[in-house]
């Protein structure tokens, strides 16, 4: 099995599988749409960080009890909307609404006294309500320009149809990440947005390498268009590279998660690592399971 996979001589008929993959893809679409409907109708909320909603956070390391936490939640200075504790570390994070600077400082003093932690050792973050909107709108603008350029590039180098498939694979990866975030209730921070942008990169990179391979095989069979044999040969051969590449990309990221967990470090770097891992897995998956059914469709219309 390994040597077949290694040599790319697995004889999977991807063209035939196209229909089955399409069904899986459609099921995914239904899931994505229902997740979006759920979040729009308010049944499930995305867990947005203060960067997007506005507000303040206070994070400190201390020995706390459940009573301490409820004391803080019932304080009269600021409304503390949520708290978060971390495994393997005695960090605790409180999220409060946005208020005047005096109030925020007052709560800082309160926490400092209550947990006997120096004010300088409390991580404090405050975000105005407009900041998240700004990041989001600037990010979206960058995204639209980027995607337009990519469509043009792929159309020139390959075909317009290929550009569309690359976009479908890309949005598939984004929606899959969105769904995982919504289901697991992971917090969405600016780091998540950066990670999502990286996922875009991975997804496109993977798809482009695949298209390149398709073009090579086309040349090999002396065809000027996609055929069943070109498709099958390409995907049988490309399997091993896909697996190897996702493994080598995933290793550093998995090590962030493991070492971070082992050292009891929470927060920012894991914020990158989780979505990146989801993205790499999804990117590898989509470069085969999402592109194949659409490429089969192209062959059919040819």
């Amino acid at each position, binding site marked *: 099995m390994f040597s077949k996979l290694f040599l790319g001589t697995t004889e999977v008929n991807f063209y035939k599988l196209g229909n089955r993959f399409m069904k899986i893809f459609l099921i995914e679409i239904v899931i994505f749409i229902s997740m979006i409907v759920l979040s729009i109708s308010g049944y499930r909320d995305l867990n947005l960080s203060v960067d997007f909603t506005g507000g303040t956070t206070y994070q400190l390391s201390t020995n706390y009890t459940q009573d301490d936490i409820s004391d803080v939640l019932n304080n009269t200075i600021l409304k503390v909307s949520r708290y978060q504790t971390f495994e393997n570390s005695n960090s605790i994070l409180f999220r409060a609404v946005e208020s005047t600077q005096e109030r925020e400082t007052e709560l800082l003093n309160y926490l400092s006294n209550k947990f006997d932690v120096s004010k300088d050792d409390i991580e404090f973050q405050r975000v105005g309500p407009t900041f998240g909107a700004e990041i989001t709108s600037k990010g979206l603008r960058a995204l639209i320009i980027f995607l337009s350029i990519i469509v043009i*590039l792929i159309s020139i180098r390959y075909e317009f149809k290929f550009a569309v498939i690359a976009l479908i694979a890309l949005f598939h990866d984004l929606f899959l990440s969105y769904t995982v975030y919504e289901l697991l209730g992971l917090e969405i921070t600016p780091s998540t947005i950066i990670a999502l942008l990286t996922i875009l990169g991975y997804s496109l990179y993977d798809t482009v390498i695949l298209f390149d391979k398709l073009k090579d095989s086309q040349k090999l069979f002396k065809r000027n268009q996609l055929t069943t044999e070109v498709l099958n040969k390409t995907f049988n051969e490309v399997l091993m590279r896909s697996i190897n590449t996702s493994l080598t990309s995933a290793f550093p990221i998995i*090590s*962030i998660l493991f070492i971070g967990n082992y050292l009891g470090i929470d927060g920012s*770097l894991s914020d990158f690592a989780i979505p990146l891992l989801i993205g790499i897995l999804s990117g590898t998956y989509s470069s085969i399971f999402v592109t194949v059914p659409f490429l089969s469709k192209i062959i059919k219309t040819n």
Partner: protein
Amino acid sequence: MKNILKFLLLPALSISLFIYVYFNDVTPKLGLDLQGGISLILTAEEGTDSELIEQAVNIMRSRIAAFGDVQEPEISISGENSVLVQLPGITDQEKAIEAVGTTGLLTFRPVLDSSLSVGYSPALEIIENPDDPENPTINAPEGVDDLTGLTINDNPNKVSYLLSLSGGYPVIYELGPAVLTGNDISDALAVYPQNEWIVQLVFKDDSADKFTELTKQLASLTGEQRKLAIVLDSQVISAPGIALDVNPNVGIIGGTAAISMGNADQGQSANNLAVVLRYGALPVSFERSSIQKVSASLGENTLKLGLEAGLVGLIIVSLFLILYYRLNGLIAIIGLSSFGMLFYSTISLLGKYQGFTLTLAGIAGVIVSIGLAADSYIVTFEKFKDELKIGRSFQYASEKAVSEAWKTILTADFVSLTASVILYILAIGPIRGFALTLGIATVFDLIFTRFFTKNAVPLLTKLSNNSRSFFPIKKEALINV
């Protein structure tokens, strides 16, 4: 021989650069999230003139410099209307945020005396020494510097001796306690009605009476004492006198006042004064859209985690490559470690000479680029395998593989590069750091593919023609497909 030199060129270059950086103690400049400190983003209203924002940034810089406690503060314009303020390792955060974010303390204080009458600060009492005329005895009241005659720590509620530089020459004023502040002003405008620039001042409704009271009092006096000083952050920016036709029994009424500014400089000083009166020190008012405080220990931990994870990742990737691609894997490891050294050196040097700071997002970019760089090797080696499979000789296959792989990698890297350039130009804050490291890494990846892998892989096939040296599979299996 020539080929060996060619393929060793890049690793040698990377190693020597790394040694240079290492022995000159150049290390990457760490962002706040990695070394601790305060970072805040101040946002002005949409559509604010960029010149005004630049002015504000300059004022903030000088204020932070006056603040002292901060090492290497960084204040920069980010995006269209935001200012990013980064204060590493600061302890007194309240004060620091106050110093950059607020618009400054503007007060109106009656002039009691000035250096114009005696030639030196009215605070100083100079007693001639008949024996030694060069060194008179100087007496200064408490809290006043006995050399300059200026109050050291100005308190707006007490008598102070403050400097004015606005007239083109220094004047020291003795000022009474503040009567009005910037909060009492509702508007200020520079206008040019007739032959002369005027700053029109409008007080808020409930402050107008206070101003009338003050002017009544001042109008009954003469000379320097008839002046009202406008003080901003302990500096007198203007000290207009009350016009001679103001009746001491009535004062200036109606809640408005006009300060005549002459017309020497086409209204520039009038405009500046109006701006200061309107906004305080900063020409624009800012909203604190984000404040983030990171303690030094969290920063250190994150950095440690990033470095360790990067290293462990690199080791696992190396092991994997060598087990799977054997001799070629070795090439990949030499390439990847040179890549790492070159990358580290570049980031350190950029930090030193261009002020580039390595942030958490940047580290994420680095970790991602390890994966991308490793993939370039995998693409090449897989092409090599494909060529062998169709019966090419090792030598020919390796040469064909590197040139074919180059085309593929060029296309794929072009996508990454486009992404990083667009992100760098359009995005704000942390995303830019990410884009920059990713972009640098992609360029390095291209350089290594073109000048290192391309020379190294064909060289290896001269050493061995055994497929076991390159793949975990026998030659017969490889070729008899």
